[in-house]
């Protein structure tokens, strides 16, 4: 099946500065795709080229089979966009804003159903400019959905939200999956990408530095695990068996070992401790978090 979004060698230059330095992307129908990167990495530039707001310097772009630089009304009928910054329609309530927008489309969604989808039933008759930040963003999602698009762009949908507003927004975005929409999400929150996305691409310095599912991104699944514990009083790192001493990655009160075979080395550690009658109450073993992977991937471009 033809991909919903297909990008080859996309570049965007502003004077001397190359904001997007040659990226390739492919997004399948029904996929929730997260474009993850720090501020200034080129996320919004890329998404605005895909939305048809910005011209590109070079590369091939196809969105729903159309070059967005030449997107017409028929194409805009099939694409929805939640912008990073946009005020509410001045003076109009939530329902009136949706009535205005639904008039722009040939076959819009039902207005009340769309209000319910973003959870604004109780605010349906409130003026848009009087909504809280989180509610206003959900109104933006409703406005982007009212035309029943196949593809929806969400540019940093939860930036500046408090934790409960983020949870609500995530719930709304998860709801788009059930509607079968293809979603292109940009974010600089790792947990947001991990929570929502089927697939993540990390962009830094205008280039894609890693791509994968939340579980495999950046080789996360095959990365070294970390074993950490505090040695009891009177015991030093030198007392550890040599095979564990070789793994020593740091000692700052707590000992840190990194290993590709955590099971084997954990067995050696616990055998050694029990043999000496020692307890290791704060022992912990873990895989790197997505956040650690992400920071490592983007660090060199910061």
């Amino acid at each position: 099946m033809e991909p919903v979004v297909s990008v080859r060698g996309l570049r965007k230059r502003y004077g001397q500065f190359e904001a997007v330095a040659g990226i390739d992307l492919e997004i399948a129908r029904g996929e929730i795709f997260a474009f993850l990167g720090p501020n200034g990495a080129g996320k919004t530039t890329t998404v605005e080229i895909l939305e048809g707001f910005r011209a590109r310097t070079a590369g091939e772009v196809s969105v729903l089979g159309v070059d967005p630089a030449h997107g017409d009304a028929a194409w805009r009928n099939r694409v929805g966009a939640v912008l990073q910054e946009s005020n509410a329609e001045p003076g109009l309530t939530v329902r009136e804003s949706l009535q205005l927008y639904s008039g722009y489309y040939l076959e819009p969604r039902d207005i009340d159903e769309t209000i319910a989808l973003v959870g604004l039933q109780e605010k349906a008759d409130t003026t848009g400019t009087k909504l809280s930040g989180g509610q206003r963003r959900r109104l933006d999602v409703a406005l982007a959905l009212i035309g029943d698009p196949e593809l929806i762009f969400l540019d940093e949908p939860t930036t500046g939200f408090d934790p409960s507003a983020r949870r609500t927004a995530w719930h709304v975005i998860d709801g788009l999956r059930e509607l079968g929409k293809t979603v292109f999400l940009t974010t600089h929150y790792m947990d947001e990408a991990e929570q929502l996305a089927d697939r993540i691409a990390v962009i830094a310095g205008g280039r894609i530095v890693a791509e994968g599912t939340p579980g495999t991104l950046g080789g996360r699944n095959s990365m070294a695990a970390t074993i950490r514990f505090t040695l009891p009083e009177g015991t030093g790192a030198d007392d550890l068996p040599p095979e564990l001493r070789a793994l020593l990655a740091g000692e700052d009160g707590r000992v840190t070992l990194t290993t590709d075979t955590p099971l084997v080395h954990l067995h050696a550690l616990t055998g050694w401790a029990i043999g000496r009658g020692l307890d290791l109450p704060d022992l912990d073993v873990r895989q790197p978090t997505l956040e650690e992977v992400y920071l490592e991937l983007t660090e060199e471009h910061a």
Partner: protein
Amino acid sequence: MIILWLWRRWQRRRAAAAAEPESGAPTEFRPTPAREGPTAAARGPLALVLHQARYDLLGVLRNGQSRFFTLILPILFLVIFCSVFGNGKVHDVKLSTTYVPGISALAVIASSFVNLVISITAQRETGVLKRRRATPVSAWILIAGRTLTAVGMSVVVVAVLLAVGRVAYGVTLPTSTIPGVAFTTVVGSVTFCVLAYALSSAISNEDAAQPMVQAIMLPLYFISGVFIATDVLPGWLHHVAQVFPVEHLSDGLHHAYDPAVHGVGIVWSDIGVLAIWCAIGLAVALVRFSWLPKAAAD
């Protein structure tokens, strides 16, 4: 004093509204519920323009500042000018009769130009237009819808000013020239709307919009017969004023209100100059129309 009192009242109401963010639905100006069946877009461009105008009108009427400057202030000006100078006479015409067309010109410009430049610039800079750009609606539909709103408001305010002048100050309007008043009002309103779109394309941020329009309009009001009759101006200054559209809107309306005039009261030379400005404005507006904030333009 009255202006000050109204201003304070407006400020208080605004403060009260801000203190109650959950105050809920505005109950006034509610549109009829969206009807079942084909959407505005499906019913064709004319239906879509009307659809846009309906919601633009709601937005304008619900904005206290817009209401004050487009509806209340012109009436206040008329009351003040007529109360202070109204009983004097120039060429056997009561001065109140010359204030109604002058203030009507001001009212048309307030609805169609001042208010519009400010709101278009604000909507562009705050991303409202950009979000609409992501929908299938086209620029000319938005321009036509907003223009229709301003024309409607202009016609209503001019009618109210005429009624106030007639009832309170005995202003005469020969019935034969009513078409002249209406036609000049509509042509003037359309002209100033497209000029508003043209000018807003040259303003880079919303804070600059208000001082910019006032800097352009205030001197023109004074030399174009809005507040002061043009006969008292030095000849050269009147010639300067005649280059700009304000003088021709004002002159056209003054002519239609002149009791000595017979016929429909349309001054075709004034309409012609307005039409030229309208054509220039439209060309600039369509070529330079921008959906995206200037601040973030590339």
